């Protein structure tokens, strides 16, 4: 089974979920690519290390080690942007002022539980801002490959990886399509071109509706 949507396709699809004038936090990994598909001035990007109005990567020679995003990449700041300390930044997140967080995921359950910070028995990378973003943002969109490299399910009835937050994910975007946790199942919002419902169902560890 090969991926039907590339990560670029997934990022382009995720960008369509962002209404004009939204405040958005993009997690490390695939979610970071979503920025490439947002029209200029469409939304405001929040970086939890203390930046709102994050702009594109700087031109060569303009990079500043003290102007970075949460992935520690050098970035720029747009007109209308602002900087602030970490407590203020997470006050924004926890207080529900970030409209959408788009986060990488390892597992998502039918209840909307999100697991994205630790593999059982694996090396612990840490939590970072993931739990705050998952618990505090108004909407959480998860992005991931539909199956693990070992072809294990990642859209599941119940997560067996350590949770990041419970009942928070409103939408999952994978290489096979777009799915919404309903509580007992995943509702098919959209399938990538050429993906049949049967194929998506076989790749999903919970009922598809």
């Amino acid at each position: 089974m090969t991926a039907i949507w590339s990560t670029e396709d997934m990022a382009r699809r995720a960008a369509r979920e962002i209404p004009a004038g939204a405040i958005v936090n993009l997690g490390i990994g695939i979610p970071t690519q979503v920025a490439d598909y947002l029209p200029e001035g469409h939304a405001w990007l929040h970086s939890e290390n203390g930046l709102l109005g994050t702009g594109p990567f700087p031109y060569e020679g303009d990079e500043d080690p003290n102007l970075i995003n949460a992935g520690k990449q050098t970035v720029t700041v747009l007109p209308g942007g602002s900087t602030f300390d970490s407590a203020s930044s997470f006050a924004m997140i926890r207080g529900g002022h970030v409209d959408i967080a788009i986060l990488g995921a390892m597992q998502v359950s039918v209840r909307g539980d999100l697991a994205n910070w630790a593999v059982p028995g694996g090396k612990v990378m840490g939590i970072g801002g993931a739990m705050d973003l998952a618990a505090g943002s108004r909407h959480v969109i998860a992005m991931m490959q539909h199956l693990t490299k070992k072809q294990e399910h990642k859209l599941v009835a119940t997560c067996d990886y350590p949770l990041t937050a419970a009942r928070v994910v409103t939408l999952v975007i994978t290489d096979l399509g777009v799915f919404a946790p309903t509580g007992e199942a995943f509702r098919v919002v959209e399938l990538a071109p050429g993906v049949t419902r049967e194929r998506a169902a076989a790749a999903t560890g919970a009922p598809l509706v």
Partner: protein
Amino acid sequence: MTGRHGNKVVGSVAEALAPLTDGMTILCGGFGLSGNPEALIRGVIERGVRDLTLVSNNAGNLGKGLAQWLRAGILRKVICSYIGNNDELHTRMASGEVAVEITPQGTLAERMRAAGAGIPAFYTPTGVGTVVEHGKETKEIDGKRYLLERALPGDVALVRAHTSDRFGNLRFWRTARNFNPVMASAAKLSIVECDHLVNNGAIDPDDVHCAGIYVHRIVHVPEHENAFEYRTVRKRP
């Protein structure tokens, strides 16, 4: 009682760090390698104190910053939010040499904000239903469950500022601000390493990021490495 807000400017990193003793809890500003008090970090090793508890978002990376403390073996415990590829920390956590307490980043920041603000504990939605909940009180408020998190004060804060006046009013540059001001507020003794030292009055009262009430010692360090962690650029058009 003597006031703690007289002459704060000291002549050297060593003088700034003289009050440190073994076993202290040190809050160290910085996110990744940005906004790190580089000279104070090196100075703590030269100071020769040990068995420290370090509170820092990342505890260094790429062998730089606080990774030097790990190599020097002066840490007993690290409270941080993210380890990532910090191999110095992974190794010592695995061997049991250093105890590691991983805390959600927002909870880490808010616990120190609370310590500085005289709030002994607060409820938060972050971590409910996760391993972070273990051993903590929970409470249902208006139908939603929350965790009780405790204030996290420090003995000493090591702070990097772009500009300080002689009273310790601070300004930071861009995302180098991060944990620095909140850590300054949370420690009994806050030591600032500033790129620029100016006279009182040079910073307009409305432009102060962190008031000098949170600062006790200031050392002027004009030169910094300011290492890049990931240098990402685009081509000029």
